[in-house]
């Protein structure tokens, strides 16, 4: 009976990614939801990974291309 209702933390964290794409069966959804209510640690995992994935989408770096490469490209374009 216990096996029927409860999933492990490993399974729960695995199912979280499927949940994002709406790819859970009704039963998986139910077991995951129950797990997240009972397990504060997995709930934290969900919040923190969402925080990371939300921010990574907007990641910006101050990177610039080497000037020599830029010149090379500009020259190439002019030859075309």
């Amino acid at each position, binding site marked *: 009976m216990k096996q029927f209702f409860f999933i*492990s*933390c490993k399974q729960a964290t695995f199912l979280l990614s*499927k949940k994002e794409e709406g790819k859970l069966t009704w039963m998986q959804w139910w077991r995951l939801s129950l797990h997240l209510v009972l397990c504060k640690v997995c709930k934290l995992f969900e919040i923190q990974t969402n925080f990371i*994935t939300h*921010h990574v989408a907007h990641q910006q*770096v101050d990177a610039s291309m080497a000037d020599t490469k830029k010149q090379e490209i500009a020259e*190439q*374009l002019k030859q075309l």
Partner: protein
Amino acid sequence: MNEKTLQADYWVSKYADMLYAYTVVRVTDTNVAEDIVQETFLSAWKGRETYNGDASEKNWLFTICKNKIIDYFRKKGNSLVSYGEFDTNSGVFDDQDHWTNESAPKNWKTNDMQPVERKEFYSVLEMCKQKLQQLQQQVFVMKYMEDIDSDEICKVLNITPSNYWVLIHRAKIQLRKCMEFNWMKLA
């Protein structure tokens, strides 16, 4: 100077850094990023006569660039082997598949990030992303930076869905753990 010369210089000075910064956080390798930007300019330049101007010039260049990035992942993905059953998460879960004490997520103080913290966050994130196994990294970038759904990613990288879900699961576990260890240390 003719118009063509002017336009070439203008394009490169206006868009090269923008496209490069976008590409390098996705592909990591600086040489690869430079090559992708170069190819982007060449394709765009050849097609500039046929470009109908529906999208802005910038968006049009970015669309080409994104396609080049995906092409790169496609080629690269097919040459990478997934570690299969090799469990890179050993030590994360115990034999009951519950969190081990040292791996269990701890509370983060992340209410709202100040600009300075944001900068730190992104540099730690970049470092942690680079630590991921290559295929995990690609899957993660495609899903969360390029917003491509899992079915499409499987097709591009020629991997099975079950392989995909394992990769994304591991990527998130590694990344979160790495962020907790390295970013919280700074906070």
